[in-house]
């Protein structure tokens, strides 16, 4: 078995173990929150008899560990259960939200990742020029502002003043692709502004770091043009850290967009998770949480694998 295969198998099994731990931690976390679903739904109108009826119907009168094992058994059979609050299948509840979240994340990523890497390369190429300073300043300003503020500023100028884009990013299964791209442009742009800086700065720093190596000096002395030095000689050796940062930001695009969803009323997973936590609807919380954890783990494993593959020394071992 090659080193890479061993590594992949090792990472994947560790990832699955992590998912178990995450699910147990989430369960404990929900149990620790004051009040249960029955109390949250009934709120001020809870009485002893309605609470008891509610709990009995949902099985909340069972001890916590039994409920967890019951849920776990279901998941191992591929059944994520039903939402306690609405009685709908969790998979059915999650489906459209998941699609929306992935759509927005992909939309933002497809623009942000190449843009950030290209800007980083150009900034390294024209280091310390006005271009470099300008790109850095813009990107850092965008990342320094909280997302909701960036969102509001975009709404103010692009929706209210200019009237070009809608303020509510409403999409559903009937929305066509172009329409969906148009309606969710503002949230996507907000996300792009928030994630570009990190990736761009990392690209720039990694390239500049490699540019200081003797072999680059050799290439330069041979008379290789500067752009070729960067793209052909520096970039391949700087890929590993860039890939890791890109993966981290892609994960953020999936799991960290709650605020942006709220500002634009975008029906994604974040809002579902917030609703589910506040009503203590643990099957939904678990499913969303597991999905987020899985995205995080998968992207990190992928980043490691690609880094290794991009590096011949690691690929072949010694």
């Amino acid at each position, binding site marked *: 078995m090659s080193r890479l295969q061993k590594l992949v198998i090792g990472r994947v099994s560790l990832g699955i173990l992590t998912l178990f731990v995450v699910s147990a931690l989430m369960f404990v976390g929900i149990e620790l929150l004051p009040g249960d679903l029955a*109390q949250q739904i009934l709120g*001020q*109108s809870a009485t002893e008899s309605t609470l008891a009826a509610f709990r009995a119907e949902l099985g909340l009168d069972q001890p916590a560990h039994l409920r967890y094992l019951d849920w776990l058994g279901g998941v191992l059979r591929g059944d994520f259960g039903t939402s306690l609050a*609405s009685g709908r299948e969790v998979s059915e509840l999650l489906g459209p939200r998941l699609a929306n979240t992935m759509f927005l994340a992909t939309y933002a990523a497809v623009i942000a990742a190449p843009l950030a890497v290209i800007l980083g390369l150009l900034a390294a190429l024209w280091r310390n020029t006005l271009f470099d300073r300008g790109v850095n300043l813009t990107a850092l300003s965008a990342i320094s502002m909280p997302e909701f503020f960036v969102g509001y500023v975009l709404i103010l100028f692009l929706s209210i003043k200019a009237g070009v884009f809608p303020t509510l990013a409403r999409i559903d299964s009937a929305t066509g692709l172009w329409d969906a791209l148009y309606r969710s442009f503002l949230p996507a742009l907000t996300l792009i502004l928030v994630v570009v800086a990190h990736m761009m700065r990392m690209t720039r720093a990694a390239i500049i770091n490699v540019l200081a190596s003797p072999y680059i000096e050799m290439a330069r002395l041979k008379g290789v043009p500067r752009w070729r030095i960067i793209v052909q000689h520096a970039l391949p050796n700087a890929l590993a850290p860039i890939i890791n940062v890109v993966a981290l930001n892609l994960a953020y695009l999936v799991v960290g967009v709650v605020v942006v969803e709220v500002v634009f009323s975008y029906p994604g997973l974040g809002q579902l998770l917030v609703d589910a936590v506040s009503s203590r609807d643990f099957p939904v919380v678990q499913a969303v949480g597991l999905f987020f954890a899985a995205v995080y783990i998968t992207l990190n494993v992928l980043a490691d694998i690609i880094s290794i593959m991009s590096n011949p020394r690691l690929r072949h071992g010694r």
Partner: protein
Amino acid sequence: MTNFTKPNGGPNRRGFLAGTAAVGAGLLLPRGAFAQAQPKKGGTLRVGFTQGSTSDSLDPATFNNDFMFASGYAVFNTLTEIAPDGTAQPDLAESFEASSDAATWTFRLRDNAQFSDGKTAKANDVIASIRHHMGPESKSGIKPLLEQITDIRADGDKVVVFELAAGNADFPFIFNDYHLGIRQDTGDGTIDPNSRIGTGGYVIDVFEPGVRVELTRRDDYWKEGRAHFDKVVILKVGDPAARMNALMTGEVDLIDRPDLKTINLLGRAPNVKIHTQDGTLHYIMPMQTNTAPFDDMNVRMALKYGINREDMIEKVLRGYGTVGNDQPISRSMPYYNDDLEQITYDPERAKYHLKQAGLESLDVTLSTSDAAFSGAVDASVLFAESARPAGLNIDVKREPDDGYWSNVWLQKPFCCSYWGGRPTPDLMFSTGYAADAEWNETKWDNERFNELLLQARPELDQTRRAEMYGEMQKIVKEQGGALIPAFGQYVSAMNESVQMPEEVSEMWDLDSQRFIERWWMA
């Protein structure tokens, strides 16, 4: 978001005050100021609502936010509805009448009321729908109010008879409740809780909990002069800024609960008008009258004189409220007693009462949280400041939002709370002030009050009822443990083209959440 309601109670007002701002009195248009006389059919109404959650379902037992109240009223009729003048009027029922002791009520259904699948509404549909909220398995918020029903029976296809444990002249008011929309009997005396088939003016095209609901008008709706919009779309837009932006850019036509901090800017936008309703919503700081030091009436009076009500309305409610008089019956409700003298901020009077109680100064703890009502923490701190000159030292204790209603409310002797209001004094007093009421916040047990409550309930003579309720309001104000500093106003904003009748029902926001059926587009 978590929602809190009481049975037959007001829609949740949490977040109502979410941040607030001073507004020139000129903005407060008198109600009906922009009403137009002639309703007109047509148009699509797009609504942006604060509430609505992915955990919502069509099961009426679980309704607990505006999104579901408004959708429910559009699709399902109730036996009665509250008219703008505050009375209960027949809706799906054609008429109702009581026996002389008000313990037997007979409701006659309309002959022409049809469900959207063409079937006529019958007595067994009504019985199944009401029974859904009764019995030991029920998890419905209205269960406690239905416990007075000892028997429901059909008398033919069109008549339903309710037998009550004791006389209740206000019984028809209960049926206005959003829980009690009439569904079809599935054949075995139960309803399908997720049924979408109602007798209302609209049918559901799309229902995505926590996102949107889309309704289309039924051309064969049996009620004359109602249901004007061709289509209605309700969107959940939780963020106040997003809601207001959407109204300004014309993506929605109507929003509830605009942010009061910036509402003056919203009012300046072209084509936008602000609408306010007085309503029954009120804020309360209940003192438990069976716990020291609140068991001393003079201590309660001292605290009542120690709060600066005008200040609270100006600073916390940003002008969108009216002063409370320590009794829960509002001006818009039947039997309101307007002879009562308005209590005002008077540190000297507070000191006097404190001395009567044999005290120089008083130390009490006020439990508060923005879960009680948004702005409660600010209101509590303001109260503590205004009370200090009178020798009242109020220690404001901030409690966690989560679990506030189970761990603080009804548990701590002095806390903050709110009531969405009730349509009648009897419902208000018997849910919140009767000695045996589950939500007797003030742990009050006044012999005369309890006696009057029981006497007034079955009384069908209006003059005598008014006298009794008038006296009860006086007793609560002068002796009770309820410190009610303010009544809040319902505020909404809409496109100029949205029209409403001259008079709207003020009990809850937006024509008591029946705007879909009652309002129209210019």
